[in-house]
């Protein structure tokens, strides 16, 4: 009960602060042009699988809850929530006076419809595994929704800050069926106008938006720029106001230029959720041998990778939990490079002369630079790594079918630590991204247990235990946590950088 009151107060405070911020100095009008790293394929949040879609969704859709820049869960379409003592029931109190862009009222019935849609076996939903533990969703009254879980599921709230928590108009979804993506309808600050594939997505201001004063902008236009250099050049030339991904090799140069007087753009930096590293296939040689995995791992100097190869645009990594995320443990040490240890392990494995293997990677400049650095480091212990460049879809396919020896691939990351580790290190079946073939019963048990706990401190302890096991077994070689950057014109005001990398335009306005 006390918790619920606290949440409501928090919600009111946040809303109040936001309105105060909004009231403060925002200039109405203007069109914001946002550059994306690729063309968002699908405007239906329940079917989307591409990270870039989520950028457009921040403007089109509201979620039940959102995260702020400190990764605290804040109210959005739900103004408060309670979790039952046994952790199996979550009750949301919904915001009143919210309408979908087509006029349909937002209420508990709409929420129930949305969850039914995501869980409908006849609907090609991409959200099923994220909300797997949900057993039932029911409307207690027009503005209260109760979610019943099969078992406690602590990641739920963070899951609902992303696509699974985005609410689509039941009327529009029913009418359009699988064509909903072509005419998307949400409750967001901006309404859909048109989408021309590979050219632009245009949204216009929602005059009935529930957040008072917001949005300031009249229109938002998203344009895809697949070429890194072109994307940056367009901000510099003033053809685009903000871009979502800044190529890491250019960060240092851009930071310098942005700091000069009279610069027309700014560069924002923040820790993010991503982790990057190498999947080792433990089901076949050479990495079915733990000693060889350990040997390879010991040759790597993570400091050099993060601070020299990547020029400080990443943190060195030795776990699945990036700096600043809830499960990050600052006390956890990153082992330095240890060639002697590497040689010792090679000796113990009977491969004193080293061994050879192939690393698969994509034709991305950064990935290739990292691969080459790792290759050089491993060579000093006699480990010969061949780098093979393949196209991304092929890489995924090969890794998923465990046909590789090693693959350089990371994860975009999630605010909740569970999704940063569970699908990768367990034999989870649906939604499993376990491209190492690793299966350890102790790890499975611990990770399952962590999902049932609602206390982050307890979960952190479990994740620490798991990380210790993985640091010994090394099915995945952690390398670095990329930081997240945004490049934006100095005309863009009110933009807040959130570690999930998503651009939120509700409070944004354009200076003349």
């Amino acid at each position, binding site marked *: 009960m006390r918790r619920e009151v606290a949440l409501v107060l928090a919600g009111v405070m946040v809303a109040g602060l936001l309105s105060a911020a909004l009231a403060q100095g925002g200039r109405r009008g203007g069109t914001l042009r946002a550059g994306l790293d690729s*063309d968002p*394929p*699908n*405007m239906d949040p329940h079917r989307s*699988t591409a990270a870039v879609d989520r950028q457009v969704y921040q403007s089109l859709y509201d979620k039940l809850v959102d995260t702020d820049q400190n990764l605290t869960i804040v109210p959005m379409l739900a103004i408060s929530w309670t979790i039952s003592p046994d952790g199996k029931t979550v009750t949301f109190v919904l915001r009143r006076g919210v309408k979908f862009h087509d006029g349909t009222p937002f209420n508990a019935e709409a929420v129930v419809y949305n969850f039914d849609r995501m869980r409908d*076996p006849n609907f*090609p*939903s*991409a*959200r*099923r*595994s*994220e909300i797997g533990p949900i057993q039932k969703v029911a409307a207690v009254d027009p503005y209260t929704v109760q979610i019943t879980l099969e078992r406690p599921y602590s990641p739920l709230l963070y899951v609902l800050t992303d696509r699974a928590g985005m609410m689509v108009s039941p009327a529009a979804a029913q009418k359009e069926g*699988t*064509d909903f*993506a*072509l005419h998307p309808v949400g409750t967001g600050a901006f309404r859909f106008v048109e989408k*021309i*594939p*590979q*050219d632009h997505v245009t949204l216009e201001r929602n005059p009935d938006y529930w957040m008072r004063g917001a949005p300031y902008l009249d229109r938002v236009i998203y*344009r*895809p*720029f*697949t*070429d890194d*250099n*072109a994307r940056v*050049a*367009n901000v*510099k*030339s*003033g*053809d*685009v106001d903000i871009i979502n991904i800044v190529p890491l090799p250019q960060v240092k140069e851009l930071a310098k230029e942005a700091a000069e007087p009279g610069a027309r753009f700014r560069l924002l930096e923040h820790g993010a959720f991503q982790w990057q590293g190498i999947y080792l296939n433990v089901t076949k040689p050479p990495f079915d041998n733990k000693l060889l995995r350990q040997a390879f791992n010991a040759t790597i100097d993570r400091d050099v990778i993060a601070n020299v190869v990547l020029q400080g645009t990443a943190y060195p990594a030795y776990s699945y939990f990036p700096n600043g995320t809830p499960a990050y443990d600052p006390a956890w040490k990153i082992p330095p490079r240890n060639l002697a240890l590497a040689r010792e392990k090679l000796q113990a494995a009977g491969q004193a002369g080293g061994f050879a293997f192939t690393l698969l990677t994509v034709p991305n400049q950064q990935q290739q630079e990292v691969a080459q650095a790792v290759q050089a480091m491993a060579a000093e212990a006699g480990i010969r790594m061949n780098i093979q460049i393949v*196209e*991304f*879809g*092929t890489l*995924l*396919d*090969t890794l*998923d079918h465990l046909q590789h020896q090693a693959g350089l691939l990371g994860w975009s990351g999630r605010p909740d630590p569970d999704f940063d580790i569970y*699908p990768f290190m367990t034999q989870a*079946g*649906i*939604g*499993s*991204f376990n491209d190492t073939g690793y299966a350890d019963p102790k790890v499975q048990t611990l990770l399952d247990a962590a999902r049932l706990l609602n206390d982050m401190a307890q979960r952190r302890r479990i994740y620490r235990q798991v990380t210790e096991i993985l640091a010994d077994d090394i099915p995945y070689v952690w390398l670095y946590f990329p930081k997240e950057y945004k490049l934006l014109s100095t005309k863009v005001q009110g933009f807040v950088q959130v570690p999930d990398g998503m651009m939120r335009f509700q409070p944004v306005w354009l200076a003349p």
Partner: protein
Amino acid sequence: MLRFLIHRVLQMIPVLFFVSVIIFVLINLVPGDAARLFLGEEASPEALAALRHQLGLDRPLYVQYLRWVGGMLHGDFGHSFKDNRPVLPTLLEKVPATGELTAAALVIAWTIAIPAGVFAAWRRRTTGDYLASALALLGLSVPSFWSGIMLIYLLAVHLRWLPASGLTPFAQDAVGNLRALIMPATVLGVAQAAVVMRQLRSSMLEVLSADFVRTANAKGLADRAVLTRHALRNAVIPVITVMGIQMGTLLGGAVITEAIFAIPGLGRLAVDSIYSRDYQVLEGVVMFSALAILMINLFVDAVYSLVDPRIHLAGGRS
């Protein structure tokens, strides 16, 4: 002429058939599961199977092929896996941008190349010739992804004369459209100019050493008349072949240039559909390109007979 045209159109059919078989086989050989890429890694085996069935991917290959070809004959080129939009309208949407870019690039290319080629041949072995040839070599060697970015930095970022990207439709904003076209057309045009210029120069040199040219000069004809009325007309046949190939290639989409200048043309559509294994879109783009090239070849062949009366089309007595 009519018989010729009919013959040629009939000949296109087996060619298109072979192209369709080849592209279909190639696409299906590429690893990567369209259903998986579409539904994402979250997909359950049941969902994947359901989608594969829905998309017809679980049928034997020859069945899938026949369905596709059958559809095309009815004007149905299939649907995009990503958002279910029909392929043909999507293709046609991209044609104006690619068409404009091709036309502008070739206008620039030929305006530079023809005078340059004639001049270089006429003034062979002089400084003028060497300069023109060197510039041609430069145009050929400089990669478009570099020259494109350099132009953007110079003209859009520093001087702010031109937009860095995009292509608003001509109907919407004619001036904006032309301004946006300048840089990408130049990047493409300069590279293509080099090709034509070298071909023309070499052709002209051959023709200029022919007896009839010596006769014309001996008759006292002005250089300009010799060059244009006599030499050029004869030298231009192989050049027309090259021009036709250029047109066909560009109509297939200038992938790199479109990526750098963010132009929504066929090139980007093709690349995008490859990465996302959007089979039907890709097949549509390839068939369209093949058809475009065949049509252009037909047109070029017809032009030959106009330029050189000695060339007879469609069999017949010579």
